[in-house]
């Protein structure tokens, strides 16, 4: 009896994890389906279907410029990864960008109204930089450099990042849990593309703030699992002077600052993947809640995928991290995404199949960034799957 009771309690605490190992081909196919969703759900003005409820067969309205830039980024990433036609869809989305670029006293911003978000500027810069390499074109370099000027201006002396830009005065205000990483990543990319423009100086300032101060200052609890920070670290590890990330002589960083932050991040990502994989529906709705937003699951894959690439380059930064376990989590996220994507046959059960096919839903609702983050994650993770 004691054994049964004990196993019952332990079973309540630790559920089976729904983790498999999709093949690279399956992951590629899922990514292709996501790209097709964007192709089928873009309007003439360059916007995408923002939210859609398949239960009632209606779009739910609203729009978000940061997410628009994020979608373009994921599409250019798909083109870079060899999914043909993805960049053409994204280029159609640039029409919306061109309509909403605003001059401000600190540089060009992207957004509607009198307040632009630094996150939308950062993700747009990352998207255009990805486009630059995917299409091997420099036709938007002038805009990229302008966006870089804006990004430099939103960084405070301590490395923190202003979230909102007053387009009239150019003043910045507020903080965002994700814009810091987005701006950092954009600056890191710009330094790789334009190494003579000193974007690295600002990027390193943000980097120091992000890994040492951000969680303490902005969001003491719960700590942020920062997939954008993961992108940034991976990009910075390709800088010619990437050794600074480890030792930080220019930053007066503690020698273990990067390792400590990376370890904390991997623990957060790992825990979230294990928790999410324990959500099977049925009784687990009561013990684990409903499944997470697909965008959230995607960000777990983005974080882990980038950190795996970084550790592949600099394994000594976190030598005590269990790489096998990390690989398992990567495969688990990919499995969850492949498994939860709406197939063609499932889509046909609903009123507008093209609104559903290739998308990820939670409780019958999808939002465009669900596809964005899932697509980016699949592209990052595909190389870690069994062939």
């Amino acid at each position: 009896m004691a054994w049964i009771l004990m196993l019952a309690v332990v079973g309540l605490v630790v559920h089976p994890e729904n983790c498999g190992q999709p093949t690279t081909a399956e992951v590629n196919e899922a990514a292709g389906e996501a790209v097709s969703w964007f192709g089928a759900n873009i309007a003439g003005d360059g916007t995408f279907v923002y939210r859609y409820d398949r239960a009632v067969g209606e779009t739910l309205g609203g729009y978000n410029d940061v997410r628009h830039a994020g979608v373009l980024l994921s599409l250019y990433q798909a083109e870079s990864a060899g999914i043909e036609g993805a960049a053409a869809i994204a280029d159609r989305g640039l029409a919306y960008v061109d309509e909403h670029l605003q001059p401000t006293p600190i540089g060009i911003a992207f957004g509607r109204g009198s307040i632009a978000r630094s996150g939308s500027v950062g993700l747009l810069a990352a998207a255009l930089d990805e486009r630059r390499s995917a299409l091997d074109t420099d036709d938007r370099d002038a805009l990229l450099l302008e966006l870089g000027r804006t990004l430099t201006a939103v960084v405070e002396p301590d490395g923190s990042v202003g979230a909102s830009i007053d387009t009239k005065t150019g003043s910045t205000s507020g903080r965002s849990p994700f814009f810091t990483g987005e701006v950092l990543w954009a600056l890191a990319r710009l330094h790789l593309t334009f190494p003579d423009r000193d974007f690295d100086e600002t990027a390193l300032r943000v980097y120091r703030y992000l890994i040492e101060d951000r969680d303490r200052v902005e969001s003491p609890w719960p700590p942020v699992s920062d997939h954008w920070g993961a992108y940034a670290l991976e990009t910075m590890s390709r800088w010619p002077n990437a050794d600074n990330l480890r030792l930080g002589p220019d930053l007066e960083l503690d020698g273990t600052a990067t390792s400590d932050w990376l370890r904390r991040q991997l623990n957060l990502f790992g825990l979230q993947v294990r928790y999410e994989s324990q959500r099977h529906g049925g009784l687990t709705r009561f013990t684990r809640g409903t499944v997470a937003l697909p965008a959230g699951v995607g960000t777990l894959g983005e974080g882990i995928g980038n950190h795996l690439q970084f550790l592949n380059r600099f394994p000594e930064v976190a030598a005590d991290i269990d790489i096998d376990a990390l690989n398992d989590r990567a495969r688990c996220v990919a499995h969850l995404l492949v498994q939860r994507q709406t197939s063609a046959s499932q889509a046909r059960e609903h009123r507008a199949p093209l609104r559903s096919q290739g998308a990820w839903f939670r409780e019958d609702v999808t939002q465009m960034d669900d596809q964005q983050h899932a697509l980016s994650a699949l592209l990052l993770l595909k190389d870690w799957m069994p062939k």
Partner: protein
Amino acid sequence: MSSTLIALAAVCAANPFRVGACAPESAVARRQAVVVATAFTLFAVALSALLSDPILDLLNVSGSSSRIAAGVAVLIVGIRDLFAQPPSPEPALAGLLAGIVPMAFPSLFTPALAILAVSAGAERGAVTAIGIIGAAILSVGLIVVANVRGTHWRAAAVGSAGVVFGTLLALNGVTAV
């Protein structure tokens, strides 16, 4: 999951003062029963550790989550030991078999020890896990042979340690990749 934490958690999971409380009174019978109980438990632990990967695969539980399971199990045993009276030597099987029931089962080879062996086997490898937990079991056996009688407060003290080490083990699993 460090070797020290595994060893301490194992001692708490197989609380020597509870095991001692259900051991035979006479020194010879006690010694014999301890040998049988220890051998039986070592065998069961070795089997659990050796089969850890297939067991976790079958249950679809990762090594990291198995640490949480082991921690929670040790924690529960610790809470029980903190408040419950040590078990009685009766009923028991006759002769040497008293080392099996009630000493090895259910007192020494607890569910917490079994789950700990599976988790440690998956995380540290079967040989290491058997070595660490085996040493802990032998220590428990020596304490029982030494006939430090199973007063309630001693068992409760080990139980309180079980609460601490079980919590640490569970947290170790929560913060693992």
